[in-house]
């Protein structure tokens, strides 16, 4: 559960020198970046638990192990913190994809499936982070949600779809253009992430990634074939 580990990192940072990266030297800018990150993580935890209206900056500061004054040095308002907390994993998703992109060039066509699994696993983990706040951003005021979606989500969709423009084969691109594929794929992962959020049912990430990779490549028939019989 990524949420729980996020909480551990956040609370362990309450000691002044306690950093997540095991005693590596940290410059002032590193500390700033790291603290921003911890505050964003704490914000995700608190917003997820309490929703928009009942989440207090005081609780978020406490969750991150800093004072409210320190929080306001980094983020001028609850709005600003909320936006950073949701944009961080959205941009993280684009970074994940960018990182995986070169690996597609080095493998033969047969060996692409494991990389697609990695793409799906990365999408799952990011959507678990994003989904609760995205729900708040879109549905706590649907008119504001439309503005948020158009201004903040769509650019990330476009950046992420660039990944499929370079990695998808022409035949696949023709069937489903990259800008549509990203909507479909993120929808699939949004559905799983929100179900996990609403029911606390555990997700077997490897099995989920495998199933989604196979659905995309071969449709339901192959995805539904028994995994135990699948040899690599």
């Amino acid at each position: 559960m990524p949420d729980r580990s996020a909480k551990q990192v956040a609370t362990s940072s309450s000691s002044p020198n306690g950093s997540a990266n095991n005693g590596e030297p940290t410059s002032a800018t590193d500390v700033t970046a790291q603290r921003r990150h911890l505050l964003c993580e704490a914000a995700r935890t608190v917003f997820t638990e309490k929703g928009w209206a009942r989440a207090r900056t005081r609780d978020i500061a406490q969750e991150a192990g800093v004072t409210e004054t320190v929080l306001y040095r980094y983020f001028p308002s609850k709005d600003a913190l909320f936006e950073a907390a949701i944009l961080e994993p959205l941009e993280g998703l684009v970074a994940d994809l960018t990182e995986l992109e070169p690996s597609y060039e080095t493998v033969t066509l047969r060996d692409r499936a494991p990389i697609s699994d990695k793409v799906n696993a990365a999408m799952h983990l990011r959507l678990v982070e994003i989904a609760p706040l995205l729900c708040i951003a879109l549905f706590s005021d649907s008119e504001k949600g439309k503005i948020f979606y158009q201004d903040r989500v769509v650019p990330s969709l476009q950046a992420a779809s660039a990944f499929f423009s370079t990695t998808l084969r022409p035949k696949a691109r023709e069937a489903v253009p990259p800008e549509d594929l990203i909507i479909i794929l993120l929808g699939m992962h949004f559905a799983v992430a929100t179900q996990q959020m609403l029911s606390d049912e555990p997700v077997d990430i490897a099995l989920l990634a495998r199933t989604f990779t196979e659905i995309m490549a071969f449709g339901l028939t192959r995805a539904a074939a028994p995994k135990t019989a699948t040899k690599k």
Partner: protein
Amino acid sequence: MVNDTGRTSVRRRMPAAERKAQIVSAARDMFVRYGYSGTRTRHIAEAAGVTEAVLYQHFPSKEALFEEAIVTVLTKTRSDILMHTRAVAEAALRGDAEETAEAEGELYAIIDSFLPELGAALYSDPGYGKTFYTEYFLPRMQRMAQSHSDSFVPGEDDNASEISRYVISAIYGMNLGYALHAYFGKDTVSSENAVHEISTILSGGIGG
């Protein structure tokens, strides 16, 4: 109005049923816009043109009003979504592209037109969404994943019901992704295009 024959009273009082319908309609608009926790009964009353006291004559609580305005609608929608998801899955498993597209068209139409209500009930408030999901959706979805794991995952597999759960989520999610994009985005989404792409993927994939 049937009762109006012969009546000459100037200040005709609105029949209770009509007033109630007006409150429900205002409530629906407010819940869809501001979600469950963001909506106040005072604002619903204002939008319906009645006092809060009148609202409470018809509905004892915000929750009761939400039940009437949103949940009642979704009870039928839930069954429809599950039924059509199953139809899509079965057709896609047979590799029947034409029938997949037909069932998928119906599934998309439902998810697309009830997205605002689904959003208000499931996604607008973590606390309420959890209750609604675990009481309304989860039991039926689990039953469906269980009862169809044989057909979704032929042969012996310890993970059969888990995989069929992901298959159901995938079908729902593809449609949800497009419906969200259509509702919140600026681009006009062609539902025909969405349906065509989704059924292409489900009935044969787009290649490894």
